C-alpha cells in the first residue's frame, strides 16, 4: 500500500477551502478590528491623559505579546473555563482584538492630525459636536491615515496564517497537511507564497502610490 500519493486535481477543493478560510478570517478581523479601532482611537484622541494611559496599557499588552501566544492562551483559557469555542470564533476574536490594537493607534493619529482650529471654526459656524466629528474630523482624519490603514490590513492578512496553531484550516495549514501527505513541500509552498503575494502586492503598491501622491 502506498501512503504517499502525488498531488492531484482532487486536492483543489481542499486548497480552495483553505483559501476561502484565510480570506474569511482576514475579512472578519479587518472589519471588526477597523470598527473597534475606530471607536477606541476616537476615545483615545478625545479622553483625558489618565484614561488614555490606562487604555494605552491594555492595548500595549496586545501589541507586545506574540500573536501565537495570545491565540494559544485564549483558546486554552476558554477551554479550561468550560466553554470551548470553535477555532474560527476563537481565532477571529483574538485576531480582531490584535488588529484593533494597531488600528486604534492609526486612527488616533488620524484624528489628532486634524487641526484644532478646524474644529473651532466648524463649531463657530454653528455645527454641533457630532456634526464636526462626522463632517470634518472623520473625513479629513481618515483620508490622512488611509495608507497606514492599508498597511495594517495587509499585515492582518499575513498574520492570519498564525490562526492555524489553534486548528483553523486556513491556507497554510491545508498546505501543510498536503505536504505531509504528498511529500512535495517545495511546489505546494511556492503555490501558497504566490497566492499571498498576489493578494498583498497590488494592495501594497497601491498604498505606496497613494502615500506618494499625498506627500507631493
Amino acid at each position: 500500500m502506498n501512503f504517499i500519493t502525488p498531488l492531484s486535481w482532487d486536492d483543489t477543493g481542499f486548497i480552495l477551502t483553505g483559501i476561502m478560510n484565510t480570506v474569511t478570517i482576514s475579512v472578519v478581523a479587518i472589519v471588526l478590528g477597523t470598527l473597534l479601532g475606530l471607536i477606541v482611537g476616537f476615545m483615545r484622541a478625545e479622553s483625558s491623559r489618565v484614561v488614555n494611559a490606562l487604555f494605552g496599557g491594555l492595548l500595549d499588552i496586545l501589541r507586545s505579546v506574540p500573536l501565537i501566544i495570545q491565540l494559544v492562551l485564549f483558546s486554552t483559557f476558554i477551554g479550561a473555563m468550560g466553554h470551548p469555542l470553535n477555532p474560527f470564533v476563537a481565532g477571529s476574536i483574538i485576531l480582531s482584538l490584535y488588529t484593533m490594537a494597531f488600528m486604534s493607534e492609526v486612527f488616533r493619529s488620524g484624528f489628532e492630525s486634524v487641526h484644532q482650529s478646524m474644529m473651532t471654526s466648524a463649531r463657530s459656524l454653528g455645527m454641533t459636536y457630532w456634526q464636526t466629528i462626522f463632517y470634518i474630523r472623520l473625513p479629513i482624519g481618515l483620508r490622512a491615515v488611509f495608507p497606514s490603514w492599508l498597511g495594517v490590513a495587509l499585515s492582518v492578512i499575513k498574520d492570519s496564517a498564525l490562526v492555524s496553531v489553534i486548528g483553523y484550516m486556513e491556507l497554510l495549514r491545508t498546505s501543510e497537511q498536503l505536504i505531509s501527505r504528498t511529500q512535495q513541500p517545495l511546489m505546494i509552498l511556492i503555490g501558497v507564497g504566490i497566492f499571498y503575494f498576489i493578494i498583498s502586492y497590488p494592495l501594497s503598491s497601491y498604498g505606496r502610490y497613494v502615500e506618494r501622491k499625498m506627500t507631493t
Partner: protein
Amino acid sequence: MEYEFHWNIVFQNMPELLNGAFVTLHVSVLAMLLGIVIAILLAIVKMNNSKPFCYVATTWVEIARNTPALFQIYMAYFGLGALGIHLSPYVAVLSALVFINAGYLTETFRGGFQSIPSTQYSASKSLGMTSLQLYRYIILPQMLRRIYHPMTNQFVWSILMSSLGILVGMSELSGTTQRLQSSSFRTLEFFMVAAVMYFIITKLVLLGSSLISRKLFKGEIG
C-alpha cells in the same frame, strides 16, 4: 471556575524558560544585525539602479514584504529541505527572520538616504569637507535619527515573530513553553508565564532603545 492553577511546575522549570528567553533574544539580535548588513547592501544596489542587481534587490524586498513570516519559515525549513539543504530549526528561523528584516529595512534605509536633500552634499563639498567628513558629520547623524524608530520597531517585531519557532520545534521561549506544557499538561500556566516574559522582553528592549536614543541624539529625534 473549575480550573485549578498549579504554578509549582512552572517555577521548577523557570531556568529552562529563561534559557528559552535567552535564545529568543539571541536569535532576534542576530537576525537584526545580519538583516541590517544585507539591507544596507540592498539599499545601495537599489539606489545605484544597476539593472540585474536591482531586479534581485526589488524581488527580495517585495517577496519579504508581501508574504507571511510563517510562510518564510516553512520555506526555509521544509522548502529548502526538499532541495537537500537541511537546516536546523534555529538556522531556519534565523534565516527567515534575516530575509524579512533585510526586506523591510531596505526600504527604511532607502527612505532615510533619500530624505536628505542633495543640496547638503554640495554645501558640505563647498565648505571643503572630505567625503568621510561629509558622511560622518552631516549625512549619517541625520539619517540615523530618521531610521532609529523604524529600526527599533523592526527589532521588536523580530522578537515577537521568533515565537513562530514553536511550529518548527525550535527551543526558544515559545518552543520551550510548548515542550514543557506538553509534558506537564499545564498549558495555561506555561503560556501565561511566556506571555509575561515576552511582554517584559519587549518593554526592556524599548526602554533600552529610548535610553540609547537619548544618549545618542540628545532628544533631537525626528
